[in-house]
């Protein structure tokens, strides 16, 4: 099983990296860029008994460690790998 996890800043938290990249892209002539948000993408290979179990465990991992829920939100999808 592969968990694909996306972690992004919550609304209202200023993302300095996103802001800088946005400026940089505009300066480079990409005028069509309206907004940039930068987050993390993680792939976790799991050896779980079932999809249900994986679902619960990955959520737990995100809440406990992978995301800081004061500033970040997360979402994930599970992909069968066999």
């Amino acid at each position: 099983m592969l968990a694909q996890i996306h972690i992004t800043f919550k609304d209202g938290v200023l993302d300095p990296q996103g802001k800088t990249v946005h400026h940089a892209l505009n300066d480079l002539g990409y005028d069509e860029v309206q907004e940039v948000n930068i987050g993390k993408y993680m792939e976790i290979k799991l050896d779980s008994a079932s999809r249900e179990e994986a679902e619960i465990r990955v959520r737990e991992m995100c809440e406990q460690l992978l995301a800081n829920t004061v500033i970040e939100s997360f979402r994930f999808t599970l992909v069968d790998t066999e």
Partner: protein
Amino acid sequence: MVKLSFNLLFLLPKSTVDKPKKNRPDPEITPQIVKEHGLTIEEFRRILDLIDRTPNLTELGVFSVMWSEHCSYKSSRPYLRKLPVEGPRVLQGPGENAGVIDIGDGLAVVFKIESHNHPSFIEPHQGAATGVGGIMRDIFTMGARPIALLNSLRFGEWDEPRTRFLLNGVVDGISSYGNCTGVPTVGGEIYFDACYNGNNLVNAFCLGLVKSDRIFLANAGGVGNQILYVGSKTGRDGIHGASLLASSEFDETTEDKRPTVQVGDPFTEKLLIEACLELFKHDWVVGVQDMGAAGLTSSSFEMAHGSEAGVFMDLSKVPLREEGMIPYEILLSESQERMLFVIKPGYESEALAVLDKWGLDAAIIGEVIEEKSVRINFEGQEVVNLPTFPVVDGALDLKRELKRPAYLDDVVQVNLTEIPDITRGDTALKKLLASPNIASREWVFEQFDHMVGLNTLVMPGSDAAIIRIKGTQKAVALSVDCNSHYCYLDPYEGAAIAVAEACRNIVCSGAQPIGLTNCLNFGNPEKPEIMWQFQQAVEGMGDACRFFDIPVVSGNVSLYNETKGDAIYPTPTVAVVGLVEDQEKIMTQGFKKAGDQIALIGFTMEELGGSEYLKVMLDRSDGKPPILDRKHEKQVQSFCSELIQKGLISSAHDCSEGGLAVAVAESCFSYGGHTLGATLTLDQTLRTDALLFGETLSRIVVSFPEERTDEIEELAMRFPIDFSLIGKVGGSDFTVNVNGQEVIKQEINVLKEIWKTSLGSYAGQVT
């Protein structure tokens, strides 16, 4: 190039080593394969002579890396032998991972500088980061705790499209790696010049502190000692001859061309430092070697060779990061953050426990054997069986052709009558202060943690950084230097000037030079002109070191710094380490108090050749570099250090790029402190441009309280040395009057702003 004919190969004795059966079949060694391993026909013949059979592919790989320029120093070694390497304080000269100098109190400093030029050009962030990691390992491999880092960076011109990207990447890389390991980056230098457009230079220096009786060498000791692998797992990073591996002839599982750059893991490095220093406390540690260039291969062969023994290793026991790695790859991998220890048998579990505590991978992978060979097994098969001598020391020194480059004929004394003198210097001063090679480096060193460790008595931004030695009254001063422009115009004098200037920086900070390390960055040594530059520079450096009585204890050579036939200027970077006996007697370059006298030690001549002034104002880079009068230089330095030792002066700053006007302005700005104005009153018959901006060597600007003037002047007279009062600290302007005529008057804060923001605003732009 001569081609090795197949017929010849058939005449060769068959390899006596079994080929690994479970893995890919070992291919025949064809001339093509030999060539792809960077070995010449002569070298291959020599291998056959030395081992009396054909090497298998893995063995050929071993020879290829060990006989490479990088590991064998085959082009440079004959010249390096001429450097002075001895002195009463030298505990270890060149030949080990780093040099060691005794500083008394039972302590020694360990230091070396090394290049990471090519990787940093391909991927500036990781290239620079792994460069820092590599040099630190050279230092703690000797048993020392790294306590300071410096770097010497060279990039192309500001207008070159890639320069900004490289500058940001390199600085980021050094910052991310050094800061994380908790070793302060306390100084360095940055130059921009068109000659580095296609080849930037990243030279990293590290200094460590060790008890003088606890220095560790790359020694394997006696038979039966255990070989302990420590650190990151081995991956397929930076494998030499990767193109060959990927070629379909003998590998059907061809994959995407692998990136040849390695990613640094500073966290693992930090753990390695702590774990190694913990291991070094034990008497059962016999020897240690980091796995740098040529990885497991060079570390095992060098340790075996160094102790006149042999090594047996089982590659199946090496911790691997990737699946399906073959012996060739495991041996030649350049994965970072790895070390090889030799420990006495019976202490394996104790050693492994220390490493486990620090969360590091570790494994016993072999032992020391009597036979002077390195024998390597993999999955039960012997894959390498080579005598150590031919591999480590068998490469012949190359007698490369030398030829004085023709361009030198065109380098003549700049004809000053062609250049109109100036009546005011304001514009030139502002331009120089904003220019790439003079503007403040604050933007760079603020990204480096230069304070961690609580030892940085003098932070970046002065002539030399000063690191105190806790528990003693001592401190060490560090400076890295090279004006490659001068080296281009005259490699012999340029290299000597680099030595003189680094020493002058050390002296200005209140220290005495005690040792030197160098990084010789040059173009393609196969060109006789480049080899000539190399020979001249090494000779100039050696002569200067002999004259100033400073031993060269370590160094590094980086050749082939050229792109599309354009070589860099010869860049023999030197880093000098100085000793301060008393922490109270340190000196910085910034003026301290309004009302203080400003004076110049040394004198100014009409020298503009190779100056920043000519480059910035007239876009000229010709002429002869300023003249180094060694005796005079020595006098200037010893007078300055006498003033400091007697506690008579408040600041000292040497004149370099930009000349007198820039040096005094820099003393006004002094990072961290207050900004003070200054008025210079000069009586001179020299041209104004040369007086203000010429780069005559052997000059130091000092300041001191007015009431000490008589005492100092008298000392100067008795010394004797050229010494002249040139002005006063104070006011809110920078003013220069020459023969009663005002030639510069600017608000000091305006000048400071120009100088301070130039580099940062350049770096921050998007292209």
